[in-house]
């Protein structure tokens, strides 16, 4: 049984099976337990669940978990956008999506599996001593949301604001993943803001509301880690906004 939104994404009652090109996710019930199975281009995974009934939630998650988690930062590297002093513009950027499989209820859930159709690549923002490792996203700049395969890509609606008195060329935006909020319906999207103070310093934050009407918020991997370290929504980019 399934409440559909996008292929694969949704809330399922055990037992179930869902398919999309290259992906099969299923949970089969046994006498007292059930078996989770996933097949995707990166391989197969099987896990035994200690119950035979319950909910499984599949939705897009922040793309910083694969192949293993080495960072909490997401870096967009895009075609240069030249901005006038004290100006504001909204652009759209594509980003890779990972697919998270959760078990449990809304306020008490845990991550069962995460996989992706996109190939991950990492980078360094700043210096090796004081910089941060980032999940690197190389992307085009669009005026409107481009068509995407929601199982592989999402769209970031990024509002750039140049608060400085100089013309500035922006090619990079770095976000703290603990602040990422993904929404999904027919597409996957999130909204963010980047305030540029100078060529070297900017501040980024993710907006906690759906970029388009009717989208619902995806469960996040970050809260399942139950870290006591507080979330830090605005991230200060101190190593430049350009190449």
């Amino acid at each position: 049984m399934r409440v559909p939104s996008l292929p694969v994404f949704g809330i399922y009652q055990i037992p179930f099976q869902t398919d999309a090109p290259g992906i099969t996710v299923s949970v089969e019930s046994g006498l007292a337990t059930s078996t989770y199975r996933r097949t995707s281009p990166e391989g197969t995974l099987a896990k035994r669940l200690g119950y035979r009934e319950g909910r499984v939630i599949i939705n897009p998650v922040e793309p910083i978990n694969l192949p293993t988690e080495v960072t909490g930062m997401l870096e967009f590297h895009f075609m240069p956008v030249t901005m006038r002093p004290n100006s504001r513009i909204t652009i759209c950027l594509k980003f890779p999506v990972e697919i998270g499989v959760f078990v449990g209820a809304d306020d008490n859930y845990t991550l069962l599996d995460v996989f992706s159709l996109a190939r991950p690549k990492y980078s360094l923002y700043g210096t090796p001593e004081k910089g941060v490792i980032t999940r690197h996203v190389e992307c085009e700049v669009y005026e409107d949301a481009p068509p995407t395969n929601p199982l592989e890509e999402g769209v970031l609606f990024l509002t750039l604001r140049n608060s400085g008195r100089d013309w500035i060329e922006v090619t990079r935006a770095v976000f703290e993943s603990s602040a990422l909020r993904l929404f999904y319906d027919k597409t996957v999207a999130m909204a963010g803001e980047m305030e540029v103070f100078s060529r070297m310093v900017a501040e980024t934050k993710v907006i906690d509301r759906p970029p388009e009407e009717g989208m619902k918020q995806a469960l996040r991997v970050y809260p399942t880690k139950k870290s006591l370290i507080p979330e830090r929504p605005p991230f200060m980019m101190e190593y430049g906004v350009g190449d």
Partner: protein
Amino acid sequence: MAFESLRMELFGNVTLLDLIVFAIAVFVALVIAKIVAIYLKKSLSDRIPPAEMDFLIKVIQAAIVIIGVYLALPSFNINLADMLVVGGTMGLVIAFASQRIVSNFGSGLFLIAERPMKPGDNVNIGTVSGTVEEIRVLSTIIKTHEGVYVRVPNEKIFTSEITNFVANVARRFEYTIGISYQSDAEHAIRIVKTLLEDHPFVLRHPSPSVFVDTLADSSVNLRVFIWAPSRVWWSVRTEMLWAIKKALENEGIEIPFPQQVVTFAPGTGLSLNPGCGGEGEGHG
């Protein structure tokens, strides 16, 4: 009779009963500290990194024991102001008597404050190389790469050169790959660059670098510089070298053995094949 013996003054006006009360109070404090440590580990272990967890537990345990001792002191009828004076004097005496211990203690405090390394880091200290297990007040425990337990006094660490392999978020490593003179070096470079591009943990920035480094005796040597996240650099290093070797071989790029061309001068009468006359070439 037994109760009277408990009232017997051992030194000054401190009785055996006072000592027992003090010992029980300290014991109870130690037990409470242990229970609190277990509780903290159970409840917070998945929310706080292990290094910070150990540090937090030690601070809380020390605070509990100090409070226990403080609460037990009145059983000695000791004036705390007097004790500070006596304690200070005793401290000086003990310090002179045990300079190495005090030196280790001081070094330990500086190590904890300066934090050139933390538990879990891969380090090289003097002749010891391994993973930091624990930084104690007097010594630091290192588990070598062979799994051997090594206790290094903090004084020694403080005065040694510490190489922390994971203090920075990214680190560089390199390979030297020799290909034959007959192979196309540009093609080989393209193959290696494609492999590096495909690997998720070979960082995009700083970008990897592949170039012809030396024209050596037996091979054209390519140099490969790779930056990777410090947390995974070793696995990337071990994985990529073999991947490069296989990819080059699949594309027909030869990785030669050391070789030397030997030419015998004419007229010496020397040859590897006597049947061919006095001149010849050999590879050895």
